């Protein structure tokens, strides 16, 4: 009865197992989007909720540890799940990953998680470490195909050289991205060979950047032994990973700027140093020349002063000599008398203009 010749008969358990096998093969990891309803967390281990739209609803089950974002009823989420028929014949989705989608849900989930992690001290400013003084090895976590990574490398190469950059290629959006980035963080921390880890991702929508609000990833960044710098999205984007990181760059390019010195700036400084000492040297030479010139002028002035002084002295002596010159006396009308002045004697007289021979007629004493 109810049987064709070659038709197989299943036990209930076998039928359920075959159904699950077919569904697993058909939907290795189906992505479903919908609104959360009847969200329940049992014994802090098991999560149950319904995922619905305006026409249908499907039950979902997941382990609490896989819950990477706070979820509440009414939130719109995207799940990656495997369909399953339970032992009780109930169809459900076993959720492997879940993330909020849509601006409202992402914002709500973000607020809840931010509050929770802040309360645990993951964002404490006192815990932030500065960039190492000397960076020679950088660990980069990014997608090598991303424009943000290309920008990071371009700026890094333009600004500085001689660095070893080890890039861990991971996805930077989507449900699997957080786990890949965590594995890359662990990789660098286990080896301890880089001075700093840069988590890089260019701009994108809130959905694209949602991975950087993943709780486990935020915790991994906060726990990193190696300082972490984030360069995620654009200047306006701030993720929880940014809050947990030691240093936050506004963009991938900005991260490259913060990690390196600018070789053009250094070259300009070097040129400025040489110009500075050139100017200094010239000014010292000018200074010494000026001192010499002043000194020479001073000596010359002194010599001139002394010569003038000698000249004046000579002039004065000459005036005195002039005054003593007998010719000058004769010029004033006096006469020089030579001979024995006695009556009858011949004498000679010398005036300024004449020589006179005379005979003394009479000599009389003056009263």
């Amino acid at each position, binding site marked *: 009865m109810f049987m064709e010749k070659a038709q197989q008969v299943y036990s209930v358990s076998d039928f359920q197992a075959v159904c699950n096998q077919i569904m697993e093969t058909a939907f290795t990891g189906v992505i479903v989007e919908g609104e959360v309803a009847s969200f329940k967390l049992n014994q802090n281990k098991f999560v149950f909720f319904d995922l619905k739209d305006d026409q249908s609803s499907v039950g979902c089950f997941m382990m609490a540890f896989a819950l990477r974002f706070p979820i509440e009823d009414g939130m719109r989420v995207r799940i990656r799940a495997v369909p399953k028929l339970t032992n009780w014949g109930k169809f459900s989705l076993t959720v492997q990953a879940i993330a909020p989608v849509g601006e409202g849900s992402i914002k709500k989930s973000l607020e809840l998680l931010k509050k929770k992690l802040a309360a645990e001290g993951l964002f404490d400013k006192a815990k932030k470490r500065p960039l190492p003084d000397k960076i020679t090895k950088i660990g980069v976590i990014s997608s090598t195909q991303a424009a943000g990574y290309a920008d990071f490398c371009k700026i890094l*190469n333009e600004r500085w050289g001689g660095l*070893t*950059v080890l*890039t861990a290629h991971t996805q930077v959006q989507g449900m699997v991205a957080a786990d890949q980035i965590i594995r890359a963080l662990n990789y660098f921390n286990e080896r301890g060979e880089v001075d700093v880890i840069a988590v890089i991702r260019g701009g994108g929508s809130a959905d694209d950047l949602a991975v950087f609000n993943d709780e486990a990833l935020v915790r991994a960044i906060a726990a990193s032994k190696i300082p972490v710098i984030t360069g995620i999205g654009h200047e306006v984007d701030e993720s929880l990973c940014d809050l947990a990181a030691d240093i936050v760059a506004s963009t991938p390019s900005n991260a490259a700027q913060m990690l390196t010195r600018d*070789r053009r700036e250094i*070259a300009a400084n*070097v040129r400025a*140093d040489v110009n500075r*000492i050139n100017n200094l040297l010239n000014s*010292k030479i000018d200074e010494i020349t000026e001192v010499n010139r002043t000194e020479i002028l001073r000596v010359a002035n002194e010599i001139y002063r002394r010569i003038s002084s000698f000249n004046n002295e000579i002039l004065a002596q000459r005036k005195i000599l002039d005054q003593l010159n007998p010719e000058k006396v004769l010029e004033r009308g006096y006469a020089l008398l030579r001979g024995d002045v006695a009556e009858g004697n011949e004498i000679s007289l010398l005036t300024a203009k004449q020589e006179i021979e005379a005979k003394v007629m009479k000599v009389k004493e003056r009263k």
Partner: protein
Amino acid sequence: MAKNISEKIDDLKTGVEWFYSEEFKLEDAGEKYKAMTELAKEIEKDLAELKNDIKVIEEDFSK
């Protein structure tokens, strides 16, 4: 062993400081200035030639 850029920049700084120090002597300054100019050229050349070594790790982080 050849000096790296940072060491050369340190040398340049020390050299520049000498010009501002009490040790400055005009007789030695020309020679020092020449040496600093050569060092600056060397640093600029080194800076222009520096290249980063960017490697993608072979590890598969998707597993």
